[in-house]
């Protein structure tokens, strides 16, 4: 195989992943909602409901506040773009995709941060009380969640001696099976960060209609139609990206290599299974826990940071 065809294969893999992620992200959100409905003894709206919502929103006319700046109009596209880029960097169906070498885990955290800054700015742009309230809370939560996420990623990087995601995944997936106690801590911390960053229940309630308790929803109150659709889609993408990042960091076993078409169906099948399990687990977590007061959130996220630091320390002590 010449280098040229290898490159084309790699690009094809990357495109497959990009398409798969953007199409499957609402499905994952739908699955989480459906699991939650089952756990709460409701029949639920079905796993396809997010697609119906997106379809409905894309066919409506957008209403934009009179005093909105161009930033407000641009934000949905920027946020959607950031999340899609993040999903392109993370090795989801195969290791060593061409895009994933372009940015390491620290840049990935930066991509998430860019999206967050823009959505907060847009929330404050209109000048409504709820918008700036939501933006401030989002900033509070994320400024506590980000160091914890970085520490989790550092723990994983320590094991593979690299901050490049493909190398991290490769070390775990294709080498001899080793139990890493430090990763157990990192995984717990990651779950807490995932809940906080994706506006899930102990920190925020994604389906709330009570403005005073909202964080994420308060920021996007002013959006409608295609803008809202893009933001909703971006939220699904973010959840998908986070869960795939978790899978890549902690259980990447069975992921395909670039150019290995025969391994691809197995990799996608395993990925679907892991995503389904993770979604069901997320729904279970959200069902058994109650939303905490916003002032308890720092303690909750402090725990995540502490766990991640403990993971690092244990890595140093045990050497694995």
């Amino acid at each position: 195989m010449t280098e040229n065809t290898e490159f084309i294969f790699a690009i094809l893999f990357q495109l497959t992943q990009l398409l798969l992620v953007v199409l499957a992200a609402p499905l994952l959100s739908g699955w989480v909602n459906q699991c939650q409905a089952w756990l709460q003894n409701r029949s639920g709206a079905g796993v396809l409901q997010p697609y119906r919502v997106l379809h409905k929103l894309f066919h409506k006319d957008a209403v934009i506040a009179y005093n909105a700046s161009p930033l407000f109009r641009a934000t949905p596209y920027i946020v959607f773009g950031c999340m899609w880029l993040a999903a392109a960097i993370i090795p989801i169906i195969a290791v060593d995709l061409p895009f994933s070498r372009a940015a390491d885990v620290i840049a990935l955290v930066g991509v998430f941060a860019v999206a967050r800054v823009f959505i907060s700015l847009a929330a404050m742009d209109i000048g409504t009380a709820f918008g700036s309230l939501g933006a401030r809370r989002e900033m509070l939560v994320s400024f506590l969640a980000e160091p914890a996420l970085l520490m989790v990623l550092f723990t994983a990087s320590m094991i593979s001696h690299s901050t490049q995601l493909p190398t991290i995944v490769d070390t775990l997936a294709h080498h001899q099976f080793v139990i890493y106690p430090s990763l157990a801590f990192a995984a717990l911390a990651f779950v807490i960060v995932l809940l906080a960053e994706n506006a899930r229940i102990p920190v925020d309630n994604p389906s709330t209609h009570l403005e005073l308790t909202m964080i994420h929803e308060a920021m996007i109150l002013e959006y409608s139609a295609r803008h809202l659709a893009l933001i909703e889609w971006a939220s699904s993408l973010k959840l998908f990206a986070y869960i795939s990042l978790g899978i890549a960091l902690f259980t990447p076993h069975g992921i395909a290599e670039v150019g290995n078409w025969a391994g691809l169906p197995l990799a996608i099948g395993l990925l679907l299974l892991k995503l389904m399990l993770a979604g069901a687990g997320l729904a279970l977590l959200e069902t058994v826990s109650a939303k905490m007061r916003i002032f308890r959130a720092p303690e909750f996220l402090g725990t995540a940071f502490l766990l991640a630091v403990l993971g690092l320390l244990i890595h140093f002590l045990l050497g694995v």
Partner: protein
Amino acid sequence: MASNYASQFVNLLAALLLLVVFAMLAQRRILSMINLFAWQGLLLAVSTFIVAYSTAQHHLYYSAGLTLVLKVLLLPWLLHRLMRKLNVRWDVETLINIPTTMLVGIALVIFAFNLAAPISQLAEGITRGLIGIALASVLLSLLMMLTRRKAVTQVVAFLALENSLFFAATSATHGMPLVVEFGIALDVLVATFIFGIFFFQIRETFDSLDITHMEKLKDD
């Protein structure tokens, strides 16, 4: 190969043990603290069992069984019964600033790891890194005894301390002689009984299990 996996698994259990101690440190509810103590006992029993299996030391099987019966079943049951009798099942302890306590805890862990580094160079076999973790758990349990204000939680902290010491013994030296272990187990059991009696006395004298009231005893 088998012993390699065994040592990795023991490492994992040690890490979980440390995690449980941290969880106990942050726990506000007394009832959850007792449940965490039971989990700690279970982790301890499993790790002792694995050490016994991988080093083929038969007396460790007995101490694993003893741990299981005493620390997972009997002591938590006793404590639960005490809670029921004292009618403090739903008590919530007001702790001073959990994040600060946790940060102090992290500092203790770093201190313990540094302290244990030269000792673990001397230790043998499968469980070298574990002395640091055991030492950290001991220090954290001491911290727990310092920060708690209710008598029941202080006793749970004391029992956690004993668990950590036991873990240090199994990991560093493959366990003490069986006679000693039986002795300690009996001591802990008797201590719990006596503490139970103390609880009733404290409550009768002060109408509360909060030991800050004991400061009233001193002469002015």
